């Protein structure tokens, strides 16, 4: 596996960040997880991808409620840019509302997952995510 490939977690809540990272660790998942703490940092990553300074991630886990630039705007930017629209974006949010679901898919989200309240379920979820986006449906390295 190319050491450059990673998962980008875009999440502002520091507890959620730690729990998610711990869940990945506990399940023994090896793909590195990098973190953007708010919408602005996410946009910086987007700029870095566009200029080629950073390699594209295997998958972006995106929370919707972000400070500075909100999640839907980040999603829109990624999916609008021809060089980036191939990056899989999994919306990971606590909202079960229809309108958020529709908005996310409308902007091109690849998947919409609700953050589980239960840690056990979170561990199960991250396993699935890694298996799907980083192994079975892994996008080619040259992308």
């Amino acid at each position, binding site marked *: 596996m190319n050491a450059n490939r990673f998962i980008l977690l875009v999440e502002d809540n520091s507890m*959620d960040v730690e729990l998610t990272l711990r869940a990945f660790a506990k399940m023994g998942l090896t793909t590195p997880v990098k973190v953007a703490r708010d919408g602005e940092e996410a946009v910086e990553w987007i700029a870095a991808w566009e200029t080629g300074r950073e390699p594209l991630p295997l998958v972006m886990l995106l929370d919707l*409620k972000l400070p500075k630039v909100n999640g839907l705007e980040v999603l829109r930017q990624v999916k609008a840019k021809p060089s980036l629209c191939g990056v899989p974006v999994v919306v990971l949010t606590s*909202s079960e509302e229809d309108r958020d679901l529709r908005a996310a898919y409308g902007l091109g989200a690849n998947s919409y997952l609700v953050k589980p309240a239960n840690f056990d379920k979170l561990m199960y979820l991250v396993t699935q995510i890694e298996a799907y986006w980083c192994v079975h449906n892994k996008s080619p390295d040259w992308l």
Partner: protein
Amino acid sequence: MSEPNSETLDFRWIAENTCDWESWIGLGGRPIWISPSVERVTGHTVAECLAMPDYPLPLVAHLHRPEVREVLRQGLAGWCGNDLPLHILHKNGTGVPAALSWMPHRDAANAVIGMRLSVRDLTGSVRSGDAWRYGRALAWLVRGAPKEESLSKRLRAITETAAATLGISRVGIWLFEEDGAVLACADLYDRSTGEHSAGTRIARTDYPVYFETLDTERAIDAHAATTDSRTTGLAETYLIPFNIGAMLDTPIVRSGKSVGVLCHEHIGTPRHWTPEEVGFASSLADLVAMAMETAENRRLEAQRTQARAELQRMNAELEARVVDRTAKLREANQQLEAFAYSVAHDLKAPLRGIDGYSKLLLEDYRADLPEEAQRFLDNIRLAAGRMNQLIEDLLAYSRLERRELSSGRVALSNLVMSALAELAPARNETLPQMRVELNDLAVRADPEALLQAIRNLIDNAIKFSRDTERPAIAIRAEAKAEGGADWVLFSVADNGCGFDEKYQDRIFEIFQRLHRSEDYPGTGIGLAIVRKVVERMGGRAWAHSRPGVGATFYLELPS
């Protein structure tokens, strides 16, 4: 009438049998011979006429006497003439329209020895001519009236037409006021000046005989107003000052009640009113009544139109208010939705933290945690889990409130199968035995909402059968007709622990629970959701139970 004898055929026979009234006057001015027909025309016998001084003047209307005197003089002077129109005074007081013709009698030497007067009774032709004129005047008044003519204009048209058609100088419309105690003049037309006036008032108490006559008689045709017993009371204050010789008064009647009188006043001399004139005057009075009726109707219509406009205005205002309130309500709903959404989101985040970190503690620091500490952490996780469930239930309940329910035909079997398919057996439990008898029935419902209700009922049935040895659940539906409509009775029956029926109503209320949460987990919202769903669809929800035996929950849904 004797048969004409060809030998005796002479003027005398003709004279005796003619329809005209013939008189032969001698040079001295005295009548020599008068035809018997005089009696028919004047009501006086030949003998009475011969005895009259100044014959024929007493038989001629005053107005025409000077002319007739001149005729006599001319005739006896040798001149002739014909068709002088005049009125003959009948013995009974009526005036007879007639035409007078005259010619001198000459002897063989052509000297005047007398004259002959011929009077032709014009009653027939005059009367038919009059009838035609009156008919035309009435038709003109009725048809010629412009649609939106004001009452005062109409009254003026009537008085003017009356004066012109009957050839009289004064016509007045008087209306009762103060409950019949006063007659007030609404319009008085003076033909000699062409002017209208109004306002004069006369009181019943001052002229009791006249007012009483108005109440009782169909018309007052006083040909000599000052002497007629019905109108003589008016002589001093009214008739003489205005030189009124004859009056023709017809009452104005509306809905059988007399509301006034139409007065025709002939100036100067007495005047005999023909039956046609009285009829015409009565018709005119009817037209006055009609005009007043129309004016009243127009006023009422205007009132009604105004009331209708007012009603429309109020309606529009109410509509506007409803629209405004609906908009406000919608806004409030949206605010509530936003509130519920953000509250739920904000509440769930810390719960994730509580659950996650307590789990990490249990896993990563198990070795360092005494058993009691582990139990504490377990309790923390339980509490967090319950709180999460509560939030989910609240969100579901509020979503139900906010959502517009659709209404379509839903097969119950589809929903029940969906709900049963979702049931995943918990780790050490087996599902109760399920019996489903739905009879292929369908109901009119919102599928999502009803599914939630059914799900909740089944969850409850399973939950409360947990301690039963051989748990069994029966899900049934049967058709029912009640109150003229078709219903479906849906039921979920279990053989679990049941409940005391006296709490039957309370269990459907939000947050009402009959068990302690450690015994049977639950937030107390499930049944509240069931009842809300069913009630919003127009149905009912209730339950029967016996503690220790089981419980059956019923839903009555429109079919």
